[in-house]
């Protein structure tokens, strides 16, 4: 970008070690659970063991008699003061959403819902007493299976998650390119493909996942003093503050929310939680500081889950593989309540099923469904991993049908680099990208041709270990988000970010950002940006965040927004400092303002060697002895930036998997990621984001799933059962970058926080399927456990998919209209 070219970057692009690390590697951390306040009381939650039940009675007398118990509170007892947990994104005007009280009042709607709260002088005593609370329930039929829940109504007697709503269907959200005027009619494309082209119909499962941040959620509320202060392990202190004020009647100015050190989030701490609301209410009632820290078991059952969709996909193409239309029908499981983003998560994916491709027609519909399971919401990628999985899996199926390499079919359909900016069939304008370059680099790093040759050889030899190559050429929309777009989608807030720059008397700089880091390294990256912008030393900059009293405005951290939105706000605030300093510099240097040039932290007089450092001016402004007339003695500046567009990072990921065809065992041999995230501020931090993102996406492909039994109990309710990958399960990655600078922000940056997760899941599953496709397999349901892979190989027949996986025929009479199952015709009988 011109701006950075004029001012050569010293800090931007450097692999600075992180400012954050000193305290983190020495244990001098401030996690919420570390806080202890005088007289602080501790909360323990009594949670429902039933997925759906009426509360018939709660006997708290034994608990109240337990040692050092201060109070035992039920939903009835707190009904008037607990507020409600909000949904900020009603995706349709007629969306059905049950009222979400922090503590259930008369009915529970998922196993893990809070029914009573014990307050005691120690956490151990609170937990002991919680065991003594005697709750009687009348069990109700529970809506558990997503598809059954979607069909349930009064006539068929299916279980209704919230009986007073009369249905489990919450909202139906539809986008149709022909109605929006952004593309053609997908039904016409499908009809044409059915008679004279290629039609591929697939159904994919996005299993339910658990964000599983390492720091369990914790909240401390101190009601003493003029303000009520809440410390919370949250990604969104500003949103929590707003929602507390909006739902409890306490003035926003009387609430201070602090997110101290926060141990990961991945969307899982983008929430306003029942536990926060309960702690707030009880601190106010008791007039004492209270603390609640969840156990891991509570976290897994009560913090929101992610994904959980069925995706029905219809891809229409010409016989040569040119895609003519894509139709997507989703069922999305909301769980028990419509969470803060809720149905907005699949809607965020709606614009990404067309991905990097030039599709002439597109239709998306999503039916959100309430069930009696843990509520779902954002998890790293939020809607976009699901979309990317669907399109990148089905593009492989198209390649098989046409009989070409899957990279070839992608190239045939993708947007060429000279076609940017490109308006997609969803109406989004992709500002920049170069899919050819990223793919070429990835292929080179991967040794694509050599691995294809090895694959061919192993197939010919009938090796028991087969090699599969998986591809994901992804893009995503991030940098949430232009406020106008959010408004048009009925989201309840904007997408701007705020920053301010304070020039201290000593020449040091304080930077305040409304973004709220929880492991990303903002303190380091933002220091690098300001160091270059103002020409001050990296070490002289302090980045402050995560406290609504310090960062009074902000919309926090999620959706890969901190750099592309928050960073741009910071650039603009810094530029205002320079503009404010110019007339003062001119005055002090006895020159005309027109002759003042700013470069590398110094205001100079053009054509002379006279000048002053910005720090010297800051000191002079502090003294204010010699200011120009009518100029305020302050350089401090702020900016609120509303993005003009989303950010569209992209990349090509390639995965090589070895599959033991006798046991179904999988071994990842190589993983290459070449991401184009525009200009990079700190390559070290970027690499960390990519690595971590990759493993979360790989984990969805291979290991993780939240599993419920048929009574609605979360079976994967501990780290024994919910399989987070370990160091021993994973490999080292080969990553690199190509660069097409974004044209929508000054620094030319794009988001990176979610990219690895969005890209990697389909790359891995495509590799698994590719390894055994010649054995009649065209799908393996996630997570691709050895058992599922083995079953897919050995089930024979059409596709050999695992139970509940691909079901290719949707239309009545589809037998005549649908294509043969890819992979079957040429390998008939192989898998039997």
């Amino acid at each position, binding site marked *: 970008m011109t701006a950075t070219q004029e001012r050569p970057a010293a800090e931007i692009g450097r692999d600075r070690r992180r400012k954050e*690390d000193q305290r983190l590697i020495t244990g001098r951390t401030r996690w919420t659970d570390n806080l202890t306040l005088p007289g602080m009381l501790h909360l323990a939650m009594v949670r429902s063991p039933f997925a759906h039940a009426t509360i018939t009675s709660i006997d708290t007398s034994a608990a109240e008699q337990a040692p050092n118990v201060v109070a035992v509170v039920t939903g009835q007892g707190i009904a008037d003061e607990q507020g409600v947990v909000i949904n900020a994104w009603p995706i349709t005007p007629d969306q059905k959403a049950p009222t979400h009280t922090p503590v259930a009042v008369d009915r529970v709607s998922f196993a893990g819902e809070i029914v009573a709260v014990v307050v005691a002088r120690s956490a151990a005593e609170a937990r002991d007493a919680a065991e003594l609370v005697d709750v009687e329930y009348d069990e109700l039929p529970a809506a558990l299976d997503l598809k059954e829940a979607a069909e349930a109504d009064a006539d068929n007697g299916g279980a209704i998650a919230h009986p007073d709503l009369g249905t489990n269907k919450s909202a139906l959200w539809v986008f149709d390119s022909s109605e929006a005027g952004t593309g053609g009619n997908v039904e016409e494309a499908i009809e044409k493909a059915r008679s004279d082209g290629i039609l591929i119909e697939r159904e994919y499962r996005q299993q339910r996942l658990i964000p599983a941040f390492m720091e369990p959620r914790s909240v401390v509320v101190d009601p003493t003093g003029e303000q009520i202060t809440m410390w919370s392990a949250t990604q969104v202190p500003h949103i929590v503050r707003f929602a507390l004020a909006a739902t409890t009647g306490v003035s926003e100015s009387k609430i201070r929310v602090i997110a101290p050190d926060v141990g990961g989030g991945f969307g899982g701490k983008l929430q306003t939680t029942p536990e926060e609301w309960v702690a707030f209410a009880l601190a106010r009632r008791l007039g004492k500081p209270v603390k609640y820290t969840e156990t891991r078991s509570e976290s897994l059952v009560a913090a929101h889950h992610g994904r959980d969709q069925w995706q029905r996909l219809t891809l229409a193409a010409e016989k040569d593989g040119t895609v003519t239309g894509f139709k997507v029908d989703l069922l999305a499981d909301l769980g028990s309540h419509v969470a803060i983003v809720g149905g907005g998560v699949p809607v965020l994916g709606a614009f990404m099923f067309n991905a990097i491709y030039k599709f002439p027609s597109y239709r998306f519909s999503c039916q959100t469904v309430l069930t009696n399971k843990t509520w779902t919401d954002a998890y790293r990628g939020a809607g976009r991993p699901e979309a990317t999985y669907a399109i990148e899996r089905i593009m492989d199926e198209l390649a098989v049908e046409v009989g070409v390499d899957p990279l070839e079919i992608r190239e045939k359909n993708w947007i060429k680099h000279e076609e940017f900016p490109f308006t997609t069939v969803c109406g989004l304008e992709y500002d920049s990208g170069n899919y050819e370059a990223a793919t070429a680099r990835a292929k080179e790093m991967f040794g694509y041709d050599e691995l294809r040759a090895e694959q061919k050889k192993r197939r010919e030899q009938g090796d028991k270990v087969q090699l599969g190559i998986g591809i994901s050429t992804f893009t995503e929309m991030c940098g949430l988000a232009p406020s106008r777009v959010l408004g048009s989608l009925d989201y309840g807030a904007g997408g701007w970010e705020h920053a301010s720059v304070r020039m201290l008397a000593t020449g040091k700089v304080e930077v305040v950002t409304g973004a709220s880091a929880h492991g990303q390294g903002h303190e380091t990256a933002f220091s690098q940006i300001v160091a270059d912008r103002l020409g001050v030393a990296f070490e002289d900059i302090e980045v402050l965040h995560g406290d609504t009293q310090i960062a009074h405005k902000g919309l926090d951290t999620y959706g890969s927004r901190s750099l592309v939105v928050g960073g741009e706000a910071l650039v603009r605030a810094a530029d205002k400092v320079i503009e404010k300093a110019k007339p003062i510099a001119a005055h002090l240097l006895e020159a005309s303002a027109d002759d003042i040039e700013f470069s590398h932290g110094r205001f100079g007089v053009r054509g002379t060697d006279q000048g002053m450092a910005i720090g010297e001016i800051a000191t002079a402004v502090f003294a204010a002895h010699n200011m120009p007339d009518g100029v305020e003695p302050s350089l401090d500046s702020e900016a609120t930036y509303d993005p003009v567009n989303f950010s569209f990072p992209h990349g090509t990921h390639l995965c090589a998997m070895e599959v033991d065809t006798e046991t179904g065992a999988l071994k990842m041999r190589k993983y290459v990621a070449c991401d184009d995230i525009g200009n990079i501020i700190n390559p070290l931090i970027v690499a*960390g984001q990519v690595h971590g993102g990759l493993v979360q996406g790989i984990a969805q492909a291979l290991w993780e799933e939240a599993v419920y039994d048929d009574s609605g109990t979360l079976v994967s309710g501990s780290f024994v059962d919910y399989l987070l990958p*370990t160091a021993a399960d994973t490999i080292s990655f080969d990553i690199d970058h190509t660069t097409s600078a974004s044209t929508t922000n000054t620094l030319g940056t794009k988001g990176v926080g979610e990219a690895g997760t969005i890209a990697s899941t389909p790359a891995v599953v495509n590799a698994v399927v590719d390894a055994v496709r010649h054995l009649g397999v065209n799908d393996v349901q996630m997570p691709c456990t050895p058992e599922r892979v083995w079953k897919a190989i050995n089930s024979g027949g059409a596709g050999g998919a695992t139970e509940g996986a691909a079901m290719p025929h949707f239309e009545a009479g589809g037998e005549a209209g649908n294509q043969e199952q890819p992979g079957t015709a040429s390998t008939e009988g192989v898998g039997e």
Partner: protein
Amino acid sequence: MTRISLTVDGAKVSDDVEPRMLLVQYLREKLGKTGTVIGCDTSNCGACTVHLDGTSVKSCNVLAVQADGGEVTTIEGLAQDGQLHAVQEAFRECHGLQCGFCTPGMIMQSVDLLKENPNPTEEEIRLGLEGNLCRCTGYHNIVKAVQYAAGQGAES
């Protein structure tokens, strides 16, 4: 209540504790050693790893009374005279941490791993850290950090 006396990060301490109190609770609640954290309740995550008499233990899996008479080192006692331990330095150098919550346990386990095997292969490092979960880094840079600390493959 049971009286225990032990050494923690070089300081002698003595307290009455409930027999059921876990070592990690003792460290955090009685001593204010909040550098050591609790990440799970099934001894899977390893965030609470400390050294007891020179060997790494998950302090959620040890009763405080079992540490009676012992010597405990936590992440807060690892740096000596203001000098970071080589493994701490390596984690920073290699960006082996993001949110930092698993880091105390990860570093303490890595120190123990290198004590037993000063020149581990990548596979030995990965197996040696199997009991410690990290959700941020994908382990890539943690492995590099241990290699770096071991004086191997310090390429950046």
